[in-house]
C-alpha cells in the first residue's frame, strides 16, 4: 500500500453502507417530517395546507392523550415487572457456578431468539377466553365463566413482561458479577444482616445495570408493535398500533407521521437522560 491510500481505502470501504443508510434510512425518516405537517381532510385525504394540528391533537385530544398515557403506563409497568422478576434470577446466575450460569443463559436467550409472533401467539393460547388459563381455572371450579385476560392492560403487561425479561436479565448479570464479593463479605464481617447488605451494598452497586436494563426494556416496550397488536387487538391501542392503523387502515398518514416523531422523540429523550445519569454515576465512583 502507498502511504496516502488508507484514507481513500477507508472511504471506499465505508461509503457503500453509508449510501444505503442515507437513501433507505435517513432520507425516508426526514421526508416524513413535511408529511407530519400536512392537513388531513377526512374523505378527501392529504391536502396541500400546512398545519401543526397533527402534533397539538396528541396533547389536546382526549383519545390521543389516553393512548399516550396508556403507552407510558405499559412502559413503566413492564419495566417494573421485569426488574422484580429479573433481579433475583440475574443475582442467582451471577453467583452460581459457571456451568449452571451457562445453562441458564441458554434458557434465557432461547425464548429471546424465538420469533416474536410465535411468543405472542403462545400468550394468546394462554390468555384467550377459551385459552389455557381460563379453561384450567374453570375445570378446577375456581371460575364460573372465563375472565377477560386479553385486549386489556393485564394481557399486555403479562405478555410484554415475558417478551422483554431476557433483555433485563442479560443486562443485570454482568453488573452483579462485577460487584466484588469482598465488599459484601466486609459488610457481613461488620455484622450487617442479609437484608441490610442487600439494601446498602449489593443494590446500590448494581444501579448502573438496573438503569441500563430498565431504559432498554422501557424503550422496547413503548416502541413495540407486534405484541400489543396481537394481545390488544384492534381496539385496545398503544402509540405503535395507532401508527399502524393510521397508515394501513384509516390512511390518516399525517397524523401517523406526527405520532411517529412523537414516539421517536420520547425514546430519544429517555435514552439521552439515562446516559447523562449514567455518566454522573460513573463520575462519582
Amino acid at each position, binding site marked *: 500500500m502507498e502511504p496516502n491510500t488508507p484514507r481513500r*481505502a477507508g*472511504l471506499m*470501504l*465505508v461509503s457503500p*453502507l*453509508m449510501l*444505503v*443508510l442515507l437513501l*433507505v*434510512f*435517513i432520507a*425516508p425518516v426526514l*421526508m*416524513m417530517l413535511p408529511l407530519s405537517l400536512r392537513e388531513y381532510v377526512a374523505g378527501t385525504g392529504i391536502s396541500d395546507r400546512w398545519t401543526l394540528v397533527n402534533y397539538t391533537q396528541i396533547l389536546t385530544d382526549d383519545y390521543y392523550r389516553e393512548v399516550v398515557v396508556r403507552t407510558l403506563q405499559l412502559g413503566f409497568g413492564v419495566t417494573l415487572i421485569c426488574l422484580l*422478576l429479573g433481579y*433475583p*434470577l440475574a*443475582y*442467582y446466575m451471577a453467583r452460581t457456578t459457571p456451568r449452571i450460569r451457562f445453562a441458564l*443463559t*441458554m434458557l434465557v*436467550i432461547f*425464548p429471546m*431468539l*424465538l*420469533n*416474536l*409472533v*410465535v*411468543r405472542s*401467539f*403462545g*400468550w394468546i393460547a*394462554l390468555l384467550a377466553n*377459551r385459552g*389455557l388459563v381460563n*379453561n384450567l381455572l374453570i*375445570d378446577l371450579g375456581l371460575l364460573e365463566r372465563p375472565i377477560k385476560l386479553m385486549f386489556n392492560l393485564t394481557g399486555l403487561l403479562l405478555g410484554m413482561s415475558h417478551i422483554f*425479561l*431476557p433483555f433485563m436479565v442479560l443486562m443485570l448479570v454482568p453488573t452483579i458479577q462485577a460487584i466484588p464479593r469482598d465488599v459484601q*463479605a466486609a459488610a*457481613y*464481617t461488620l455484622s450487617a444482616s442479609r437484608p441490610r447488605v442487600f439494601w446498602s451494598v449489593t443494590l446500590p452497586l448494581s444501579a448502573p445495570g438496573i438503569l441500563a436494563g430498565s431504559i432498554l426494556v422501557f*424503550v422496547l416496550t413503548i*416502541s413495540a*408493535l*407486534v405484541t400489543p*397488536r*396481537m394481545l390488544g387487538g*384492534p381496539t385496545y391501542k398503544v402509540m*405503535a398500533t395507532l*401508527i*399502524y392503523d393510521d*397508515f*394501513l387502515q384509516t390512511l390518516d398518514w399525517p397524523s*401517523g407521521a406526527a405520532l*411517529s416523531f412523537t*414516539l*421517536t422523540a420520547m425514546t430519544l429523550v429517555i*435514552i439521552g437522560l439515562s446516559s447523562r445519569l449514567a455518566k454522573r454515576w460513573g463520575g462519582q465512583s
Partner: protein
Amino acid sequence: MKLDDKPGWGLATVSVAIIAFLQVPVLVVVLAAFSKTAYLTIPPKGLTLHWFEVVLTDSDYLGAAWTSLWLAVSATAGSTVLGLAAAYALHRRMVRGAEFLTSVVMAPLVLPSVVLGVALLQYYTLTGLRGFTVGLWLAHVVITVPYVVRACLTALASVDPSLEDAAHVLGADGRTAFRLVTLPLIKPGLVAGGLFGFITSLDNVPVTVFLLSASQNTLPVKIFTSVEQGVDPSIAAVSTLLIAVTGVALVLAERWTGFHKYV
C-alpha cells in the same frame, strides 16, 4: 455468620420458577400444535399430526416460508458484506468521524421499528419503489446491518493490530494480510453477527408488514395478520416448526461460535 455469599435454596427455587415462566408460552404453542381440539386443554385431548400436514401442504404457508427464507438469506449476505467492510474501516479509524459514523450505523436499533416501517412506506410510495422486492431487501439490510457491524467491531477489538503489521512486513499487501490474518481471527464474530442478523430479518414484522406487495407474505407477517381472523391450530403448527428451527440454529451457533458472547 456467613462470609461467602453463595445463593441459597430459596433463591434457586425462585430462579427456576422464573426460567420456567420464560418457557411456558413456548411449551403451550408446541402442545397446541399436536392437540386434536382447536382449543388447548391440559392434559391435551388426543394427539395428532394433522395440523402439520395442513401447514406443509398449504401453498400460502409454503410461499410465505420461502419468501421469509430468501429475504433473510439475501439481506444477511448484503449486510455482512457491507457491514464487514465498514466495520473494518471504522475500527481502524481509516475515515474521519468514525465514532459519528458508527452511531449512524447503530441508529436503526434506536428508532422504533414501526417508525422506520411507515417512513419507508411513504418514501417508497413517493419514489415508485412500493411493492418492489428490492425495496424490501434494502429495508432488511438496514435492520440487520447494526448487528453485523456490532459483532464485527467486538471481534476486531480483540485482534492485535500488530499481527497485520507483521504480515505487511513479511510482504503481504493490505488485502492479503486481511484475508489471511484478520479474517480468520474475526470469523466467529462475523458468523455470530450474521446469524443474529438472519434471525432479526426472519423475525421482523414492524417494517416488513408495510412494504410487502399484495401477492407477497412472510411467515411472521402471515401469522401476525391471520391471528386477527381468529386462532387456528395450524398457526401453532407453523410456530412449532419455527421453534424447532431456532433451537437447532442456537445449538449449532453456540457450538461453532460461542454465540452468547455476541448477543
